[in-house]
């Protein structure tokens, strides 16, 4: 029983991290129609920057997380304004540029932080755990789940209750119409790209005590973001949330039960969804 | 046997009925004109006939052959050719190359991965002849991007004719043409022999009415009025559609 319990808790936690990663990816894909192949690198970059701020410069844990998010968000803004905006109109070129940038970021991280994995210890305030229902819950993992839920609630409030959110939703539904109505779509693109990048960076650091930060983290996380978003629906926050938890479970249980076919179990549903129902389980837009 | 018979054709997109119980019968060699205000469903009807859209109900047959379930690419092989409102040809290629592609579409050679296409004299000669029919043989080596809009329209018609169609669908062939270009296309269409049945959608009333033998008037996806020129022009319903009441 306790093995399943541990797997379940880990799955939910991983799902929370995946949500931080894929919510931004989904919004970027939904609004700008490009799968941002730099997203995994942004997650990793956030992990590295946050680790340095926390371990080397001794910033408080959550402050380091927010600063990491800000740095990665700024980086995203630079990419969007300098490169992606130049290539507006050619989604393929934009996708290829994000691919190229992911290579640059990966090597940049290798250069600055070397190849040794960085393990970040759980912040002392959240160390330890509790035992409930015969399962040992680490406090930190609960914290991550809570943070993910808070972020989800904030994002939902942003999209549903604010003017900016309404503009984003309009842009996702019909970019041409949004422009006609007077929404400054290009400025929206920058905002959403920064938001997505920041979320990914944030997730990269608070995930560090669980996943650690290492070269290749970007390649490990990006395909998962893709699966979540394809399954959950491009541009759909609900879809990202549900998809993240589903994939969290599939990934963890898959690794435990059928390690040889773990990736197969993960990607086959994505392929099936793309082939049969490209708009995903919740999305309204077909890419 | 009629050239084209459409019976009870229905098509809806979500809640919107774009084609409503359309019945149409076009005789062999006839020149049929379809007119109607914007949004009447004329191009949708063409897309249904050509097979790019599948109808919800009804049937389409060409010279007795039921096309309703047939894939659109096969309808070209059954003798159906069409032109489009917006010309979508191959701008980086020469006029000759564009027509060659049209000829190749119905030829068994199109699956051949080893032959050199530009060395096939018979095909090239046929393509040149097709361009000659529309008066563009002298521009055979010109890239399409360097030709005028009127010339491109004529190339498109040449490509459609090159497939020796039994039924030719023309979607607003006069749109965007200058007076001279319109005259050229008019003459071209007039020269098409009677073994080709033509159905045309057009907005330009003067040219279209001259061309048409029978006219079908569409509105909100239905065929409201059908008859010859005099009948249609006199019909009060037609006046209502175009002028409002």
């Amino acid at each position, binding site marked *: 029983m306790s093995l399943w319990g541990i797997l379940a808790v880990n799955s939910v936690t991983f799902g929370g991290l995946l949500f931080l990663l894929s919510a931004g990816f989904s919004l970027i894909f939904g609004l700008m129609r490009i799968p941002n192949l730099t997203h995994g690198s942004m997650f990793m970059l956030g992990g590295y920057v946050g680790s340095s701020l926390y371990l080397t410069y001794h910033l408080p844990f959550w402050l380091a997380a927010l600063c990491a998010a800000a740095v990665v968000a700024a980086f995203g803004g630079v990419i969007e304004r300098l490169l992606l905006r130049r290539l507006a109109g050619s989604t393929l070129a934009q996708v290829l540029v994000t691919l190229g940038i992911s*290579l640059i970021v990966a090597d940049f991280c290798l250069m600055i932080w070397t190849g040794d994995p960085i393990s970040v210890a759980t912040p002392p305030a959240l160390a330890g755990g509790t035992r409930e229902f015969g399962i040992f819950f680490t406090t930190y993992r609960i914290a991550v789940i809570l943070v993910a839920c808070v972020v989800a609630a904030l994002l939902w409030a942003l999209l549903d209750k604010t003017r900016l959110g309404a503009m984003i939703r309009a842009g996702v539904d019909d970019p041409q119409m949004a422009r006609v109505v007077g929404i400054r779509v290009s400025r929206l693109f920058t905002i959403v790209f920064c938001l997505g990048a920041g979320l990914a960076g944030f997730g990269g650091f608070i995930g560090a005590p669980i996943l650690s930060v290492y070269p290749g983290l970007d390649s490990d996380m990006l395909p998962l973001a893709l699966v979540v978003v394809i399954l959950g629906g491009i541009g759909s926050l609900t879809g990202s949330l549900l998809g993240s938890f589903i994939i969290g479970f599939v990934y963890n249980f898959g690794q435990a039960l059928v390690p*040889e076919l773990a990736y197969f179990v993960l990607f086959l549903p994505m392929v099936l969804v793309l082939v049969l129902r490209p708009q995903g389980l919740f999305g309204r837009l077909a890419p | 046997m009629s050239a084209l018979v459409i019976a009870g054709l229905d098509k809806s997109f979500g809640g919107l009925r774009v084609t409503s119980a359309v019945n149409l019968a076009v005789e062999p060699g006839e020149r049929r004109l379809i007119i109607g205000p914007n949004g009447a469903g004329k191009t949708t009807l063409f897309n249904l006939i050509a097979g790019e859209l599948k109808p919800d109900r009804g049937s389409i047959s060409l010279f007795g052959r039921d096309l309703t379930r047939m894939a659109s690419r096969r309808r070209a092989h059954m003798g159906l050719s069409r032109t489009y409102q917006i010309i979508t040809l191959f701008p980086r290629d020469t006029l000759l190359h564009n027509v060659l592609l049209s000829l190749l*579409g119905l030829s068994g050679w199109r699956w051949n991965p080893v032959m050199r296409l530009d060395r096939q004299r018979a095909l090239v000669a046929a393509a040149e002849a097709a361009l000659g029919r529309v008066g563009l043989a002298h521009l055979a080596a010109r890239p399409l991007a360097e030709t005028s809009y009127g010339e491109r329209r004529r190339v498109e018609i040449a490509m459609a004719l090159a497939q020796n169609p039994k039924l030719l669908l023309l979607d607003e062939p006069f749109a965007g043409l200058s007076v001279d270009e319109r005259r050229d296309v008019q003459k071209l269409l007039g020269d098409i022999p009677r073994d080709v049945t033509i159905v045309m959608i057009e907005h330009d009333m003067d040219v279209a009415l001259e061309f048409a033998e029978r006219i079908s008037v569409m509105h909100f996806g239905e065929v409201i009025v059908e008859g010859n020129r005099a009948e249609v022009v006199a019909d009060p319903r037609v006046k209502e559609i175009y002028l409002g009441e």
Partner: protein
Amino acid sequence: MSARILALALALAALAAVPWWVPGDYYISVSSQILIYAVFALGLNVLVGYAGLVSLGHAGLFGVAAYATASALAAGFGHAGAILFALAATLAGTAVFAALALRAAGIVFLMITLALGQILWGLAYRWISITNGDNGVPVASRPAPLGFALDVPAHFYYATLAVFLLALASCYVFIHSPFGVSLKGTRDQPRRMNALGYHVWLIRFYTFLFSGFLTGVAGILFVYYTQFISPQTLALTSSAEVLLMVISGGTGTLLGPIAGAALVVIVKNIASAYIERWNMLLGVIFVAIVVFMPEGLVPGSVRLAQWALRAIRPAASARKAGTS
């Protein structure tokens, strides 16, 4: 026309003479590597440049060929048997790829191929009982066709060169054939092609098979070259690299992929000796080409050369006018 033939003859002569003018075995091996990746890039370009379908999963097919060869050899098959098995396995894999990915075009096609490539990578990485996982599968020896031992770098180079020339010739024939012409038509105006009577899906399917076949050939050459295959070869970064070769060289041309392959292999192998951050350099080159020279190096260089010639000529004719 004769200028082109002369250029071609010179290029051929230069390629044939590589073991003589290239300084040492290491560089002969790099030349072989360039040719192997050129075949890979030609294969991908058939899909990207001529069919207009961008795949990010081709490293998976490349890996299938390599693993199939290595596994067959390890199972006791002879070289001929292993190669045939590998080609068959790659074609089977390609058919599955094509059947799934061709349900869509554009970005969805890209993502399906990405996912399929990831599935194959995951299988290579995790299905340890078959693939030996991270440890990889070694290849004990290279073939010796008709007694010509390919263990010597120069000999292996000639074998690779022969295969490369065959691949290049087959692409040339393919492009100029009716099928190739109709393929380019489906790239530019799929709807019109459909209306003209072409079976667009089937054209793309056969093209995918041809692309997969060339990729398989490259994979077989690769595994004999490195005498080792590991899951890293099937990673997303590998698919990205070969796509970089195609894009940087210039899609829709025959020389483009070759130039792109040479560029990437040279940066990876030779520049890496002088520049530590060659991976970053590759990324920068990629971004620069996509942004500034999207048509690729080959057409872009031609454009630059034409511009340069035009800049020189007015000066020459002005001089002429001055003297008369």
